[in-house]
Each structure stands twice: as C-alpha cells, then as structure tokens.
C-alpha cells in the first residue's frame, strides 16, 4: 500500500463526511478540507468521523505506520492550540477539540491491539454476532493456575522444599503461557492480513461474493475471541510474574 495511491483516490467515506458540511463561519461549502477555502477558518472534525478517515488511512488492519505518523504530525501542526492563541474563542475551541480527537485517533491506530479493538467496535453493526461464547477451558485453566499460586503464597513462609518445587512448576507454566501469547500475536497478524485481503478494492482484486460477508464475520469473530483470550492470559501471566518474583 502506498500513500500516493491513497491521496489520488480518497475513499468514498471521507468525501461524504466532508461534503455534507459547510463552513461554520462563512457558510460556504467545504469540500473535504480542514480549512475553509473562502475564509481560511479551521473546521471542526466531525464527531462521526472514524479514526482511519481522520488520519487519511483506508479501514485496514495492516497500516503504513510511516504514513500514519506523517499525517499525524501534519495535522497536529495544523490544529495545535498554540497557533490559535490570537484567534477567536470559537477557533480556539475547534483547535482544542480537533487536537484531542487527533491524539486519540493516533494513539488508537498506532497500537495493533487497540487498532483491532477499534475496528471491531466500528464493525459491530455490520457483523451479526461478534459476541463469542466464553472460553470455558481457558477459565478452568486459569482457576487451576490461580490455585497453584495460592498454594505457593501459603507455602512461601514455612516449607522451603514445597516452595522450590512449586516455583519450578510455575516457571514452566509461565513459559508455556508466554509461548501461547506469542502464538496469539502471530495469529492476530494473520487475521489482519485476511481482513485486509477481503477489503482489497483494487480493480484486479477478486469481486465481492456472498461468501465474503461470511468470511468477514468469521474473521471478526475470531479476532474478538483472540483479543479476549489475550486479556485473560495477560492477567494470569502478570499474576504469575508478580507472585513468583
């Protein structure tokens, strides 16, 4: 994906979002710019604008981080409150609001996990049922591990031999869990690519089929599952580290 291609062909979404508004100051039509062409006043970012659109990116999961950063710096400079000190109160408000949204958008998209969580929220309406059934096996496993941790805490005062063997067992558990975390991260990246492939809008890409909606829902569902399980695993690993440290 190149940034050039994106600039030449802005997504329909961003055109629509901008086209329906007019300048709050001089009421002239705004055609997709952050500043009114007539009176040069800064324009507020639409609250409904999604973060991808805000930062000029297509709604994909593998993103061009360099392009993201460049656009972020670019817009930060344009909206920064320091440059609006001598402007009107309305312009100062807009500068502040835009900067806040821009910062949140950048923070969210920069981090792959936050990015995926955000995409899931955006897509929640289009997929019928992203909700997944609770991972019963994982819960059982976590409860067993927590019981081992309790035993370890209880033993740590008196029984040195028991502590040593528990510590060895917990260290082995921790290694396995950390390996699973790495596997999850790898799988998440695979899902990123699958999602992006389903959204390839280039002309040579395969046309949308009835299957692709199902495929999308499957990817979203697995991603939802993976992100939840990742949180459960992270907690138990953190507990393991804190207790055995």
């Amino acid at each position, binding site marked *: 994906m190149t940034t050039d291609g994106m600039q030449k062909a802005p997504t329909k979404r961003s055109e629509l979002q901008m086209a329906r508004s007019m300048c709050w100051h001089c009421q002239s039509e705004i055609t997709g710019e952050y500043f009114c062409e007539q009176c040069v006043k800064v324009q507020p970012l639409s609250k409904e604008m999604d973060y991808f659109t805000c930062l000029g990116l297509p709604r994909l999961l593998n993103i061009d981080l360099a392009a993201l950063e460049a656009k972020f710096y670019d817009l930060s400079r344009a909206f920064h409150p320091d440059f609006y000190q001598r402007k009107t109160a309305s312009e100062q408000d807009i500068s502040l609001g835009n900067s806040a949204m821009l910062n949140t958008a950048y923070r969210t998209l920069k981090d792959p996990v936050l990015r995926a969580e955000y995409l899931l929220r955006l897509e929640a309406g289009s997929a019928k049922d992203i909700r997944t059934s609770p991972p019963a096996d994982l*819960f059982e496993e976590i*409860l067993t591990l*927590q019981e081992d941790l309790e035993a370890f805490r209880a033993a740590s005062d008196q029984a040195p031999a028991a502590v040593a063997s528990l510590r060895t067992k917990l260290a082995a558990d921790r290694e396995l869990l950390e390996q699973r975390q790495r596997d999850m991260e790898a799988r998440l990246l695979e899902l990123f690519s699958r999602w992006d492939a389903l959204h390839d809008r280039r002309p040579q890409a395969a046309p949308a089929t009835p299957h692709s909606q199902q495929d999308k829902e499957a990817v979203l569902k697995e991603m939802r599952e993976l992100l939840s399980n990742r*949180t*459960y695993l*992270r*907690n138990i690993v953190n507990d393991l580290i804190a207790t055995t440290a």
Partner: protein
Amino acid sequence: MAYSEKVVDHFNNPRNMGSFKKDEEDVGTGIVGAPECGDVMKLQIKVQDEKIVDARFKTFGCGSAIASSSLATEWLKGKTLQEAQQIKNTDIVQELNLPPVKIHCSVLAEDAIKAALNDYKKKTEEKK
C-alpha cells in the same frame, strides 16, 4: 474515585470465599469472565429441595468484582432457585454504590449466578 465502604468491607472480609466439589450432584457451578478487563469469577451454589443452602465464590479480579461476587453469595443463601433467578446486576450496583466504570463487575456477578443456576438445572435434568 475511591471504593465505597461496602466494597472495601467485602474486599477485606470476603463472605463465602472458597469452592465446592464441582461434580457433586447438589452443586451448580458458574464460571464467567469479563473480556474487557480479564477478570475471572467462579460462583457455586449448593441446592437442597429447590433451595440454595450454601454458596461459594472465587474471583480473580478487581475489588468491585470481588465485592460483587461476595455479596451475590450472601444474597443467594436461603433463596429458592426461582428467587435467585430474580437477582439483577442493578441491585448489586445499588447495594455497593458502584460507579459507572465498575458496572460491568456487577454484570459479571449476575452472569455467574445465571451460569450456576443453569449448570445445576442441567445436572438435575440429566439425572431424570
């Protein structure tokens, strides 16, 4: 935001912490989790003649999650299965004065109650 006095009390003196043997006939077990924060909650009921005679919980999570499940076990004891079904997360929110960001903890406790009741129901139906 500080925890309410009641949350702190349940956190420091959890009621009915522990567990029953899962495979016993008169025990219903519910294990649920909150994917947002990674909390895991286990809640168990012991039933005699359609009445909950005892309850236990084990929760690995924040203070509000622990307090919600501790309170839930207190409320469950002595209730009939039907009465237990009526416990709502909003009752827990009210009793513990949970702030909006902690409402999901009370939802987790309600889910755990429902899961334990369902598990018990399934067990008794299989027996028939």
